[in-house]
Each structure stands twice: as structure tokens, then as C-alpha cells.
């Protein structure tokens, strides 16, 4: 079973890229692959994950175990939906952040020691000097996510992969974390790959978006363009099925029929065709390639929205 199939994308230095999709779209597997964290028995069958200016071995897929360990939490950091799974409940948080730095030897022991409190301040944790002595359970959900971000950024990575970092949080706390990620991105220049199911969060944080469906990238481009003029029927339908605070109230929602396919039984042709309102004969038999449909925007569709509905699509 291929959870992710022939996915290619590029993240520029300092860029914020969103990968959106529903469950089973392959968005999390893609994110985990960047750090070779795909759980057993999953594996990367083919493809390359290249890091610019990262020493002699630039392909993560070809690195030794040791090299990958050095990379994780070093040049590439990752945060997850549930911070409690990544924090050790019996160790003080200051110690854990110091250890994260010690593991990568970028900073001397004394430097690492001195960086802990400023890192907590950087993620806007109040009373940082006292808080370093606390244990994870003494922090709320939003605060724990801040701790994870502090730990992730402690080695000054060039890329932060954030897998649904706000999904478990309440909206007021989500707003705080998004704001923090935005500020850190512009302050430190850390590139961010945000994995989410929420298009609105992408609109809020990311300059570019990649839309995944059933293991494939179906659309990609500048966030503004993709959300304002989606060219793949899946993106188009998804945007129309959302009740929106900025839209009129009470109208019936345009729902997408059926459900995402089982990856073990993928439909023929285009993987979205059974649920697509614009499908043609060709879509049933032949899978479309990911092609440029507008400046910087790609879609995997034989009949992109503009071709079907015209400019106002």
C-alpha cells in the first residue's frame, strides 16, 4: 500500500509551506518522511529528500542512522499534535531543553545552560526562570506546545516541521500558537512546513500550500491563488463545503459525496474521480499529471476549474 505516491515539493529558505489534506491523504506520512520517522513496517521505497547546504550527504533517504539522528532536532526539528508524547513526564522542562542541545553539540555545556531561559522567553512563556524547574504536567496544553517549539528551535534549525500543532488546542490558544509561529518565522528565518487539515490555518500562516488527496499532491501554489482560485475540483469543492464566518449564513453547504478512498483499493484513473462533479470519461481511465495551470500554480486534473467554469470558477 502506498500512503504517499510520487510526491515532490520544494521549501525555500525561510518559507512557510502548508500541506493540507484529510485523514489518509498522506500528509503526515510525507512530513514524517522528511526525517525518516515513518513507523515500521512503513518505509520510503523511492525518492529523495534533499537538504541544501547540508554537508556532503544531502539526501536524507540515503543517510546512515547516525546521520539522521544528528539531523533530527538539529537542522530539522519536528513538533506534533500531542506534546505530551514528546516530553518526558519525570524530567524538569529546563533539563529536557538543555539535553536537546547537548545531543547535538552545537553549543557548549555552558552556552546550552544559558540558552534555556531565553528560549522559554522566546516562545513567550512567562516567569521563564521559575518555569524551567517545573515538570511537563504543570503546564497547560498550549504551554506544552510552546515548550516543544522552544525545544525544537533550541538548535537553530533551518526547518521546523509542525504536524497538526494546533489541532488539539482551543481556538483562543490556537490563535496564540499561530501568532507565535508567525513571529518566530520572521524573527529567526526558520522555514516552516505546517501539516494540517484546516485550510483557514494555512491561510493564516503559510505563503504556499500543497493540497494532498489519497497519497497524491493534487494542487499546489501560492496560498492566495489556491484559496481564491482553486483549480483542482477537490480543492474547489472543499472550499465550498466549509461553513465560513466570512460568508453568508443559512445557504445549503455544497457537500462532496462519498468518502476518501481506501488506499488498498484506489479507484482507477484520477483518484478523486468517484467524488468529482466535473469528471469526464477520461478521468475514469487515465490519471492526470500534476501540471502548471497558472503562474506558480499546479493541479493534477484533466479539466481544471478554469477550463470547466471559466474565470469566475
Amino acid at each position, binding site marked *: 500500500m502506498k500512503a504517499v505516491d510520487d510526491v515532490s515539493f520544494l521549501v525555500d529558505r525561510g518559507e512557510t509551506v502548508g500541506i493540507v489534506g484529510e485523514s489518509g491523504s498522506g500528509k503526515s506520512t510525507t512530513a514524517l518522511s522528511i526525517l525518516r520517522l515513518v513507523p515500521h513496517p512503513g518505509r520510503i521505497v523511492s525518492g529523495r529528500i534533499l537538504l541544501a547546504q547540508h554537508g556532503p550527504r544531502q539526501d536524507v533517504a540515503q543517510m546512515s542512522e547516525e546521520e539522521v539522528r544528528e539531523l533530527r532536532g538539529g537542522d530539522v526539528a519536528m513538533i506534533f499534535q500531542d506534546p505530551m508524547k514528546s516530553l518526558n513526564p519525570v524530567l524538569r522542562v529546563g533539563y529536557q531543553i538543555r539535553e536537546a542541545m547537548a545531543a547535538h553539540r552545537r553549543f557548549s555545556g555552558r552556552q546550552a545552560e544559558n540558552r534555556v531561559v531565553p528560549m522559554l522567553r522566546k516562545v513567550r512563556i512567562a516567569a521563564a526562570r521559575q518555569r524551567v524547574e517545573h515538570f511537563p504536567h504543570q503546564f497547560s496544553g498550549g504551554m506544552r506546545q510552546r515548550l516543544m517549539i522552544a525545544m525544537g528551535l533550541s538548535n537553530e534549525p533551518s526547518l521546523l516541521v509542525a504536524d497538526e500543532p494546533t489541532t488539539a488546542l482551543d481556538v483562543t*490558544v490556537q490563535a496564540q500558537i499561530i501568532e507565535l509561529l508567525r513571529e518566530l518565522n520572521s524573527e529567526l528565518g526558520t522555514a516552516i512546513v505546517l501539516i494540517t487539515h484546516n485550510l483557514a490555518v*494555512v491561510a493564516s500562516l503559510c505563503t504556499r500550500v500543497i493540497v494532498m488527496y489519497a497519497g497524491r499532491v493534487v494542487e499546489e501554489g501560492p496560498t492566495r491563488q489556491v484559496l481564491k482560485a482553486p483549480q483542482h475540483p477537490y480543492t474547489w469543492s472543499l472550499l465550498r463545503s466549509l461553513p465560513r464566518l466570512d460568508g453568508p449564513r443559512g445557504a445549503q453547504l455544497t457537500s462532496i459525496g462519498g*468518502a476518501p478512498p481506501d488506499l488498498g483499493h484506489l479507484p482507477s484513473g484520477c483518484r478523486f474521480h468517484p467524488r468529482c462533479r466535473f469528471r469526464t470519461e477520461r478521468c475514469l481511465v487515465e490519471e492526470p499529471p500534476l501540471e502548471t495551470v497558472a503562474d506558480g500554480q499546479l493541479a493534477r486534473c484533466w479539466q481544471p476549474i478554469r477550463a470547466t467554469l471559466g474565470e469566475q470558477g
Partner: protein
Amino acid sequence: MSTVQRTATGAATRQAALVKVMGLSKHFPIGAGLFGGQTVRAVDGVSFEIEAGETLGLVGESGCGKSTLGRLLVQLLPVTTGHVQFKGIDLVALRGERLRRMRQEMQMIFQDPYASLNPRMSVGETIAEPLRNFGVTRELDRRRRVAEVMRLCGLNPGFSNRYPHEFSAGQRQRVGIARALALNPAFIVADEPISALDTSIQAQIVNLLDELQDRFRLTYLFIAHDLSVVRHVSDRVAVMYLGKIVEVADSDALYQRPRHPYTKALLSSIPVPDPDLEARRRPILLKGEIPSPVNPPAGCRFHTRCPIARFPTCAEREPPLVVDGRGHLTACHFPGTL
């Protein structure tokens, strides 16, 4: 809309109230030992009404007590103090068979249809169970009704012998809805009915609930944390914070002219899938997170995070839920000033 009368206390009473909640509280005692003797005040002195045929949305962040409140309304949890009237009858005073009879008319839809369906029962049996419990003795009658509600919920009645794991998450939620519908209830509490579903499936379920409401004149309490969905489905919306209702108003009024600072902050926190609007949106970032309901702050419970709290008033006096000329209820000493 029905005539709205004002009582001396300022609470609005609607003539066609199907559900009337008065001073409702639910306190959970927590453990012995370290926390011995403490209580979680999950719902604390709440009063409101739900009109026949309307959808009242109930929103709030995790731990605010919205799910507990939903369960109290259909008597899935015993109340600590206060009253719940359904069609003018006080459910809290009812026991045994009389309460059971009333229950037919009040049903519940849960968040996770996988957890709320018995994996060892076929979906047909699951949907028929309430019918059996409430005296539909003939197998043929039950089967007929099961087929009927399955069709109404967009399910193929031919699949009634299948088991929950053979259905997708969206279909399982349809089974949950069909079961709730089987006894032809007047009132349904839907507790986060779509939040466990994929985005592309959510609209299907929202549309289904809409259709069923029109068809059977159902009354809903729609509990959710997603304010965009709540705006879409609700005629009126109630906002909860730490066991209290802080604001109730018609949907449009609440979203366009929120009067409580918490509602305003909540609304400003929600991102929309439009990068241009996002670039302009200035969320009102609240300080910290929700305090513990074991030891809620004195005075207004929101004062510890409120951007416009004035001292000592807000820290000492609890603001009552007061109605304005348009039926908009707000529990704030300084409403509309943020």
C-alpha cells in the same frame, strides 16, 4: 418568531419554549486523598430556553461545561441543583417509568459514532434497540421503521445486517442519527456531531441534520467548539465559559455584534480560509488559558483573562445575565465596550 416577554429579573421567556432550564448546576466531587472534598463546578447556575423548532447552538472551549449541560438536558446525568422543564414538565422531579416515557422524545447524537455504536450489533439492531425498549413489539414493525429511518438518513436499508466497522465514519454518524430518529423525538441534543469527521464529510452531515429538522420540525441543541459551523446551523447561539452562560443572542446578532468580551475574543480568534482577510484579521489574544473549574475565579469568571476587566468590580461582583431591548443576553459589567 414567538412573542418575547420580559420578566422582572430580565430573563426573556418565550411562549413556545420546548425546553426551559432554570438555575441548573452540576458539580462533580473529585477523588479522596490529595483533592478530597473538592468539586468540579462543571455547570454552575445556568438558565435558558429552547424554542420549539429552533436550533440553539452552544459553544465554548474545552472544559467550559457544554457537553455536561447537554447531558443534563436529556437526563443522562442527574442534576445537582436546578430544573429542566420539557414541554412544561420538570424532568428533575420525574423518576422511573414516567421519566423513561419522556426520554422517548429526547435523543442524543454523539461526537464519535464509532465509540457510541456497539461493534457487536448490526446497525439494524442498533437502530431497532430504542424501538424494542419502547414497546414496538412486532419484529416486522421494527424492521419497517429501521428501513424508513435508514432511508431518511441516506443509508441503504439493504445494509442493515452489516456491522459498524463496515461503514465509513460519515455513514456511522448517519447510523447514530437514524437511531436517534427512530422514536420520532421532538428534541435532539447533538454533541459535536461532526468534529470527528473529515472536512469533506462534515457538510453532508450538517445538510442531513438541516433536512431532518425541516421535515420533522425537530428542535436541536447543537453543541460544538467550531464557531463557523455553529453560525451556519443555529437560529440562536449561547456562549459558555467555565460553567456559566456569558451570552445568548440570535445568530446574526451574536456574530455581528457580540457584546461579551469573551465572545468577541473567541470570534476574532477564528481563522478564515482567505489569505487577504487573514492578513487584516487582528485576533484579540487572551492572556493564558481557561482556569480550573475546581477553583473558578471570584466575581466574573472571565476577569483573569479579560482585556477590559475593571477592578475591583469585575473581581468581586458576578455579572448577571441581562437582556437588552432586542432579546440579546449578556453577563458582563461592561458589555459592548471591547
